[in-house]
């Protein structure tokens, strides 16, 4: 995919901007077939496999959104579980209490995190770097505690998605699989489109130096708010899909700080500021959890130390190491100038 741009008619002639690479084409083809495979899971996968894939996709989605926030907008959040929980609860309320079709409710439920994103940003954007992070945590705690005393959603006892008994196992598998494919398309595909657009250029500029970006005409505050909002919606979608598969929700599970831990681990180990890193990190976390989860606390100690190690010694994560060896981006966002020789 090249764009032809006439930069200077009496200069070096026509210059083309190349943005796609061979590795990008291969990755695009693989990615499209993966999403098609996920959407068609009911026809080839077992119930257990579907549950695993849904979980993995939710990790990818939440981490992709955290990557946008921390890797590009410079907004480090440790309270993304606020959006997971509020969207999941909104889905339960719509489906269980209002009688909306639960699969449709998943899509409608993302309005809740979008609404929550507005006042939270208004409050928190006054806080500087690290304090912003703990501020997001306070918001998540407020949501958890408020939900725990909110009788309409059955307070601390939580809710069950009993309306799902009205659907057969096949229908449920189909709905969850479609939503899962849709979620990946929105979060990963959406991130990629955003990064390729002119907003992506502005975001990269903000990531590298917010002051310089502002001086180039980037409205840093507005851009950060848009990313905050987009990340809230994407994270919320993951929460709604996850709890649709879980069928049961309680305040501690909905607002589980573990969501933030997963997002941070996935992005930091995979590689901050890259979509490839999100996918690599999510796969590492998913398989580490499957293989070593039985070791409980010791496994989490290792996970924590690994995050610490990455922050000190390998800021680029696994993808950063790969990039040093071979230059083959899966989601190329770089613009290369090609000059046509007369």
């Amino acid at each position: 995919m090249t764009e032809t741009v006439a930069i200077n008619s009496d200069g070096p002639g026509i210059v083309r901007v190349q943005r796609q690479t061979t590795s990008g084409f291969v990755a695009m083809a693989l990615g499209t077939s993966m999403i098609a495979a996920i959407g068609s899971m009911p026809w080839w996968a077992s119930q257990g496999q579907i549950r695993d894939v849904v979980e993995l996709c939710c990790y990818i989605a939440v981490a992709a959104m955290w990557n946008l926030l921390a890797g590009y907008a410079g907004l480090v959040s440790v309270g993304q579980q606020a959006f997971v929980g509020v969207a999941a609860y909104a889905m339960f309320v719509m489906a269980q209490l209002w009688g909306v079709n639960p699969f449709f409710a998943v899509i409608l439920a993302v309005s809740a995190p979008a609404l929550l994103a507005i006042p939270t940003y208004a409050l928190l954007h006054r806080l500087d770097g690290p304090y912003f992070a703990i501020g997001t945590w306070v918001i998540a705690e407020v949501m958890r505690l408020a939900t725990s005393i909110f009788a309409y959603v059955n307070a601390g006892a939580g809710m069950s998605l009993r309306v799902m008994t009205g659907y057969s196992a096949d229908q449920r598998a189909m709905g969850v699989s479609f939503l899962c494919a849709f979620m990946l398309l929105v979060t990963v595909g959406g991130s990629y489109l955003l990064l390729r657009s002119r907003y992506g250029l502005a975001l990269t500029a903000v990531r590298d130096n917010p002051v310089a970006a502002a001086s180039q005409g980037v409205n840093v505050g507005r851009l950060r708010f848009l990313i905050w909002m987009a990340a809230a919606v994407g994270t919320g979608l993951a929460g709604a899909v996850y709890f649709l598969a879980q069928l049961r929700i309680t305040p501690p599970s909905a607002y589980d700080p573990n969501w933030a831990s997963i997002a941070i681990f996935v992005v930091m180990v995979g590689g901050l500021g890259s979509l490839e890193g999100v996918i690599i990190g999510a796969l590492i976390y998913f398989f580490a959890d499957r293989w070593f989860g039985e070791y409980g606390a010791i496994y989490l100690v290792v996970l924590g130390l690994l995050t610490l190690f990455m922050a000190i010694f390998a800021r680029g994560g696994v993808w950063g190491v790969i990039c040093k060896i071979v230059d083959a981006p899966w989601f190329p966002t770089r613009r290369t100038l090609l000059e046509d020789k007369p």
Partner: protein
Amino acid sequence: MHWLDGLIQGVLLGGLYAQYALGMALMFGVMRIVNLTHGDLMILLALTGISLAARFALGPWPVLVILVVLGAIIGLLLQRLVLDRVVGSDPLPSLIATFGLSMALQNAMLQFWSADTRSLGAGGIAQASFQIGSLFVGVLPLIVLLTATVLTGSLDATLRHTRFGRALRASSVDVEAAAMTGVNPKNVYAGATAIAVAILGFAAVFQSMRATVAPADGPFQLIYAFEAVIIGGMGSIWGAFLGAMVLGISQSIGFRIDPGFGILAGHLVFLLVLALRPQGLMGKV
């Protein structure tokens, strides 16, 4: 009387929160680092203290001395081994590093001490109280409050009047300029972190005497410390003390409205301050 009692209990609770918050105010003031292991280190010290007291049949006061010294050592190590490598203008590395360390610490403590809640036997002092009118005031909470006041006053005086304090304030304004005038920022940072964690030694003893501690409690203490610092105003030591009082009173009054509302009331007051007076009660604009 019901509400006056709530107010007094809140001030006393605030004394404990002030001890959490002082170290955080100091570290953020100097290094602009938020150490996410702040709460976990307090729990680590508390659990260590409880185990030492049980093993060697120590009273709370010898344990306090041990924990303060141990806290200073841990602070020094934390700064040298971890924070020195991640401190900088970008807040992300220090956040992520301490986030990972916090996760590792919590689970290591869970493995070592199990998830049980524990407390430190305080002898008769835990139950002792005296009566003012129709109100009862506990002796131990009063000691906690007095200790917090003395700690705040000493820390504030240290920052204002000692050579170390001047070096610290200079480094917080401009590290490079301070280094040019002969201050060694690495030593100043190490000193600040050592003091911050040593103060947590006090908090650890009083927390485990007044209530219970469990390995997973750290994040909550971190949030209280953070809220106290923001309510009070960043960069002000007495501000952190005042913020802790406001937080303690909010929670205490909240608990009297509804037991499920106590902690939430504290958070809401914090958000209210953030909305109406973002620079904090004692912060400079």
